[in-house]
């Protein structure tokens, strides 16, 4: 409802396809401070379409910060300057009239740019497929209250489970490491009694696939935690390390 608009110079990474060379293109926009960042891009796109020019390709879905689809690097920070929100929750009132805003895709060897700001993040699914689950078939289940789980433990598991799989941790890490993502799932399941039977092989298999996909390794800069829209703690990475070390020391499986 605020009528005053702010004027920005937006520099957006445009790249027609994975194999083509990209570059920054400048867009000038006058936008309401109540708009979200993605709505600002919508407006640029609407103008482009009116001029019969190709709109900027970027992904978003729920626009409530939970689906993990959106993810842009804004002025060098994944999901922009405000902590603990996804790109879709960033609003233009956080920018000043006359600002220059740089918009880039998430960058990692494991996240190829597909077009403009869209990257391929299926690697994260492959890591989950390697073991990010409890192997229980539909129906082969005890009563939900058969296993008591302490409120504290359940709550820590929930903290880890809150991960939205957006990949901002990879984008923020100078090594493009996926450790925070992997550790969140490993932690959630390692903390719960249901996750115990597969605890050893789960961590081994998930780390194996993570390494194969070309993510970097963790050097404990904790940039991932600082940029995570859900504030997932690096304590989970510590837990992942512990789980991995113990799994390798204790398990008798020489193949893993």
């Amino acid at each position, binding site marked *: 409802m605020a009528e005053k608009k702010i004027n920005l110079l937006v520099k957006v990474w445009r790249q027609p396809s994975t194999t083509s060379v990209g570059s920054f293109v400048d867009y000038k926009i006058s936008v309401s401070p109540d708009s979200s960042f993605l709505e600002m891009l919508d407006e640029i796109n609407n103008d482009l379409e009116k001029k019969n020019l190709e709109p900027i390709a970027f992904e978003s879905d729920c626009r409530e910060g939970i689906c993990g689809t959106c993810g842009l690097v804004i002025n060098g920070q994944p999901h922009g300057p405000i902590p603990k929100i996804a790109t879709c929750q960033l609003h233009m009132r956080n920018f000043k009239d006359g600002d220059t805003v740089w918009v880039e895709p998430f960058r990692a060897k494991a996240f190829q740019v597909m077009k403009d700001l869209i990257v391929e993040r299926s690697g994260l699914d492959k890591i989950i497929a390697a073991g990010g689950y409890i192997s229980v078939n539909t129906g082969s289940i005890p009563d939900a209250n058969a296993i008591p789980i302490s409120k504290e433990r359940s709550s820590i598991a929930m903290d880890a489970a809150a991960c939205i799989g957006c990949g901002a941790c990879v984008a*923020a890490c100078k090594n493009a490491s996926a450790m925070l993502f992997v550790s969140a799932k490993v932690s959630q399941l390692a903390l719960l009694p249901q996750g115990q039977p597969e605890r050893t092989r789960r961590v081994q298999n998930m780390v194996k696939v993570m*390494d194969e996909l070309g993510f970097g390794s963790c050097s404990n*800069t904790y940039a991932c935690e600082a940029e995570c829209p859900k504030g997932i703690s690096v304590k989970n990475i510590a*837990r992942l390390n512990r789980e991995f070390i113990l799994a390798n020391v204790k398990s008798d499986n020489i193949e893993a």
Partner: protein
Amino acid sequence: MNWLFRSLNSSIGKKVIMAITGISLILFLLVHLANNLTLFAGPSTFNTVVKSLDSIKPFIRVIEVILALIFIFHIFNGVRLWYENKIARPTPYAVNGSSKNSTLLSRTMIHTGSIIFIFLVIHLSTFWNAFNFSDLHRTHSYYEFTADMFSNVYYSIFYIIAMIILGFHLNHGFQSAFQTFGWNNNKYFPLVKALGFLYSVLMAVAFSSIPIYFLLIGGN
């Protein structure tokens, strides 16, 4: 032993190698420092200490070989991680926002490490070489040699800078090793961080105090 090789070769395994070798070097630095601080007790004490170490040479040699291996593992593995991590992000960002999400020290381990490596080479080629393979071996005037070295302002300044950078490297490395081992929880990790900070300051200050001392007293 394939499994061990595979485990240590994984991304976490490589970090564990960094942490184990790093902690070992942290312990070594304590011993080294204790030894150096005897300089403050005067020439006779220091020379006696070094001489006594000289008398158990075979044992020292074994320790040195182990230490060398630890250093080589730490350095080789560190460079390898740095290189692999660089490949994991082939295209850099146009705007680097890392200063907003992480500390400079945590991001520059390869740089501080490289400087420490250069220092190490010079340090070995001067002190270690002289203590082991020069006339000192006969005269046992280690103290005098040391005082002489540090009377050179340029060498002392280089030494002090290297020690400060060592402090930077240790500050991140200390707590990082604990994180890698998985020892990070609400209760103790703040303590680990504080301890790491104190330790790194102690190392930088205590090691630097020696050239400063010799500069001030002019080697006498």
